[in-house]
């Protein structure tokens, strides 16, 4: 894949110097900071409401580190993935529509390197953002609560990263296929919704990528979790999407 290294350098620079840095890593950081804080402050807020509200009965358990971690994973699984799907709708088509791809691909940069570089750079950004966010979340949680399942949370975030990178590969494929970024984002939301639906059925949840988020939550709770097969299929789906994206992009006119 000729030209991959300089193209990756360009992608990283672009991430740092443009809006891209703000979206997914921004959401990750927001989730990492807000989850322990919201969990910690929630009883106080509810107490304020409940004591003043006639006829309102509120029973609040003391917040725990486990709740903070579950809140964090919940945010990663919804808010951040949603932002990922929206942000990366134009990951390939944006450059093609904008005309920058024509100048870049007229140089000895292979189409495979272009597509792979797009995915790889953003995969590293998402993974690094998740790792950094998780460290912040764990540190803040340790500060606000007693010891919690930090190790299990790290494992669950690892599974979330795999799931997010698969969705990123799906977005790369959609962005190659659909010329309009908004259309790719819309289709990506459809894929995300379909995975949420598939997660509701035991058969599909235990054998497809759809089961990975629930497996992560189960791991944090310390419950038995089926994550091996969903992880394998997640990696397989991601690889298949990338291969398909490369093959389709090689035939595409710029």
């Amino acid at each position, binding site marked *: 894949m000729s*030209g991959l290294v*300089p193209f990756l350098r*360009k992608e990283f*620079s*672009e991430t740092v*110097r*443009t*809006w891209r*840095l*703000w*979206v997914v890593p*921004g*959401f990750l950081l*927001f989730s990492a900071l807000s989850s322990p804080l*919201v*969990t910690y402050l*929630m009883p106080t807020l*509810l107490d*304020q*409401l409940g004591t*003043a*509200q*006639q006829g*309102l*009965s*509120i*029973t609040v*358990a003391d917040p725990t580190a486990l*709740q903070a971690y*579950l*809140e964090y*994973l*919940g945010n990663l699984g919804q808010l951040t993935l*949603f932002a990922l799907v*929206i*942000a990366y*709708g*134009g990951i390939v088509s*944006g450059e093609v*529509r*904008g*005309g*920058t791809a*024509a*100048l*870049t*691909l*007229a*140089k*000895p*940069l*292979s189409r495979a390197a272009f597509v792979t570089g797009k995915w790889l750079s953003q995969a590293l950004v998402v993974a690094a953002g998740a790792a950094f966010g998780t460290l912040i979340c764990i540190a803040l949680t340790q500060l606000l609560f007693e010891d919690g399942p930090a190790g299990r949370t790290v494992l669950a975030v690892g599974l979330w990263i795999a799931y997010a990178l698969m969705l990123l590969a799906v977005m790369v494929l959609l962005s190659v296929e659909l010329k309009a*970024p*908004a259309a790719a*984002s819309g289709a990506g939301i459809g894929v995300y919704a379909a995975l949420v639906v598939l997660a509701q059925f035991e058969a599909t949840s235990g054998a497809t990528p759809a089961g990975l988020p629930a497996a992560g*939550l189960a791991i944090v*709770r310390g419950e038995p979790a089926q994550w091996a097969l969903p992880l394998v299929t997640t990696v397989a789906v991601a690889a298949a999407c990338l291969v398909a994206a490369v093959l389709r992009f090689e*035939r595409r*006119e*710029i």
Partner: protein
Amino acid sequence: MLTAGAAVHGSGVTLVETTLPIATHVAATGTSPALVALLVVLGAVEVGLLAWALVDLYRRPSAQINGGSKIPWLILCLLLQIIGPIVYLAAGRERVKPAHDPLAGGGPAGSAAGRAVAGGATVAGVAAAGAVPPPLAVQRADAATVADALFAARGAEPDGAAASGPAVELRDVRKTFGDAVALDGLTLSVPPGSIYGFLGPNGAGKTTTLRILAGLAHADAGAVRILGRDVAGGGADARAVIGFLPDVPAFYKWMTAPEYLRFAGSLFGLSGRELDDRVTAMLELAGLAGVRTRVGGFSRGMKQRLGVAQALIHGPRLLLLDEPTSALDPIGRRDVLDMIASMRGRTTVFFSTHILSDVERVCDTVAVIARGRVVAQSGIDELRSRRGGLNRLSIEVDDPRRLWEGLAGAPWLRTVEAGESGELLVTCDDVGAAQRELPALVGRLGLALRRFGVDELDLEDVFVDLVGEDRR
């Protein structure tokens, strides 16, 4: 509305759901004023941010939206309230600072003296990287000297096949877009080292041809070779020896000119000192040295010059330029044409345009394309003379109508039209015969001859004749 009832994951909260208007809720229950104030402030901030973001999104042109599309940002703002508008306002709007063009005069970066000194140092650097003696005196404006150093420093020498064969060879190339035929059996051959004008009206197939040569589009049929290399099947080795400038070059707006040139050079495998020297030399050549503004703020002329510079960064053996002067003002056009002319004898330039004066100024060979086919291909002088001695005689007599009638049936006659000052403009296939017979005809008709001369047709006349002939 104030809504309670959202459950925290695994928090064990049991909550009787209630939904009350805030005012009613406060009046009825006497909720803590601090909490109400907080909620009101939060609500106001949320609504304010959303309104600000939506109004800005509505008013802002798509070109000034990061990512180029409004819809994802709209979805983000609407669905992720508070966070979505903050993200859009912080990162979605593109702020571009207009750049000062040194060649437009004014600033110190544009001063001739400053450019001359910097240019000298740079060219020496490029020459040194290529182990050739540095030139003794260099002017910034001396594009040919920069080009000398650039191409002398080029590592790879032409291979035998490429040196002896055509630089570009297209044979029976066909390309369609649905029912529309863009290229209809296009065949042409570009001599190595020439500046080759690829001339045609809008929609003739020029851009399609260049996109195929640059590897951005695929021919449906036919053979396409660049310097002996087959372009079909990816053509990465062919792309390694070309420099390409599309009609509207688009750069990464967040980069500066040196950053883009560095990126372009690194894709061609350049690195270290050689890359540094070439970047500096190309900035000098393009008149962009000292410009540190992002490319997003560049004028069209600056972008076009940067486009030529990025195409030259690796010392290409074939330079593909798609209408490089079409949207430039006269000064920008002169700059770009000077840069192209400086490549003569150093590399092959394949240059599409519909501006005939540009072709006459810099090209030595020309092909005229119409409806996806080459209708003429030769040197410019040869093209002019081959059209006929396509020459035009200008004759003024006291009664032009009688002469017009008398010309009917002349075997050498092609067309007759009235000139602006009453003279007749006679286009003929055999100018010698016309020169002999026309004055004799005037004598036989008893007319008074006031003026008689031969006008050589310019390229525009030839072009109109060729393209018009194809359309007939």
